[in-house]
């Protein structure tokens, strides 16, 4: 008799392990590296984040002289958040970043 049979029959009676994702959400753990957000009040324009970023995702806007992160390039390594002297950049738990609007793909 196949060895997996008891397991298979047990699975029919058990609740499926699948999480019905868009309806049921599992909170990411503490310290998750999701969308980086920039607190512009705290930014002191030292541009350390730009140097730390491995894929040049951070740029500075000409008018406001504040950094913004283009999420299309961001690899979510968290180097910018680590290097920021005033903790102006923070990694959030947000991970659903797909969008049709290119302006939405920026973290400012």
């Amino acid at each position, binding site marked *: 008799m196949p060895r997996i049979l008891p397991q298979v029959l047990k699975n029919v009676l058990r609740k499926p392990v699948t999480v019905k994702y868009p309806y049921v959400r599992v909170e990411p753990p503490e310290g998750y590296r999701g969308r980086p957000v920039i607190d512009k009040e705290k930014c002191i324009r030292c541009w350390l984040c730009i140097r730390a970023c*491995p894929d040049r995702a951070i740029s500075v806007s000409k008018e406001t002289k504040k950094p913004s992160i283009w999420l299309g390039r961001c*690899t979510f390594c968290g180097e910018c958040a680590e290097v920021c002297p005033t903790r102006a950049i923070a990694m959030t738990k947000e991970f659903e970043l797909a969008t049709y609007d290119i302006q939405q793909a920026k973290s400012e």
Partner: protein
Amino acid sequence: MTFVLPIGPQHPALKEPEFFRFEVKGEEIVDVDIHLGYAHRGIEEALSRRNYKHNIYLSERICGICNVVHTTTYCQAVEQLAGVEPPERAKYIRAIIMELERIHSHLLWLGIAAFQIGFNTLFMLAWRDREYVMDLREMISGSRVHSATNTIGGVRRDVKTEHVPTILRGLEKLERSTKYYINLFGSDRTILARCTNLGVLSKKDAIKFCAVGPLARASDVKTDIRADDPYGAYDALSFNVVIEREGDVLAKGMVRLREILESIRIVRQALKEMPGGPIRTRVGLQMPPNETVERTEAPRGELLYYIRSNGTDTPERVRVRTPTYGNFASMKSMFVGGTVAEIPIVMWGIDPCFGCNDRVTLVDSRTGKTRIVSFDELRRRRK
């Protein structure tokens, strides 16, 4: 009469694009030709254009499944260039994350191997249990796959004390299910019918073709960089090198499954013996001109990094030799004489990772045309 059966670049048996040209006579394979290069991304060139720190994240993306072992090897090589030693605690954290990665890689292997032989239930169950280890990795490093934990001179994140009980609980579950899979994989009649005595790599061939990793260990070759040339914390950790004698697909699977148990042991041991103290030392990015070679045991076998520095903050040359590349040579001796039905499972027996592998390009100096060299062509050119 032989006819050519193309497997790839797009084929459900392959998870990544690669082209295999099988010459078959009826169902029997008489020859195999491997065309590499469909996933060539120019990473080595890109590595020599970024500074040492940025390269960590690029080397992490050479392979998704074994990303930690890539960054660990890279960081260890750069640490050697800079002449610094990471703190003890960092070494242990690296070992923990690398072993968790090995567990997840081997469970992934089991799932896809089951899919290749048409055992979808085992596929789903193995991947269900893989989620435990993914959750642990997410908790420790902040992301399911790309851990981004390693940095030059240590690690960026500590394993927190409140995480230890959760990790141990997760390992408990993994151990239970791994033992179940070992039992199942070694005793189910249909699995045995599909996996024994096929794709056999004899010990002689394994040595001749320089097979590495679980592939070599399944053919009774005791090779494991963790034991042969200990790096990081592996000096202080005790574990067994798992070997099997038969060299067939079943032995390859058994080696991997039993290695999961060893990895669980290593993680437990590392969590218990982990010393306190700092987790990183600061390293300047200006490396003196020098060259270094560093090798580690990735889930698939020996991973080798060669770095040459030239006094600036960017390396002059980085060469990566991934385990799959080392194992391609032994492919022909495993395939020839088998049948078409064996192709997927035998191919998956070496746990190929083509994303890691494609870095051979040939530039014709007269026409300036770039093209990818096939395995056969390379052999012909050498003559």
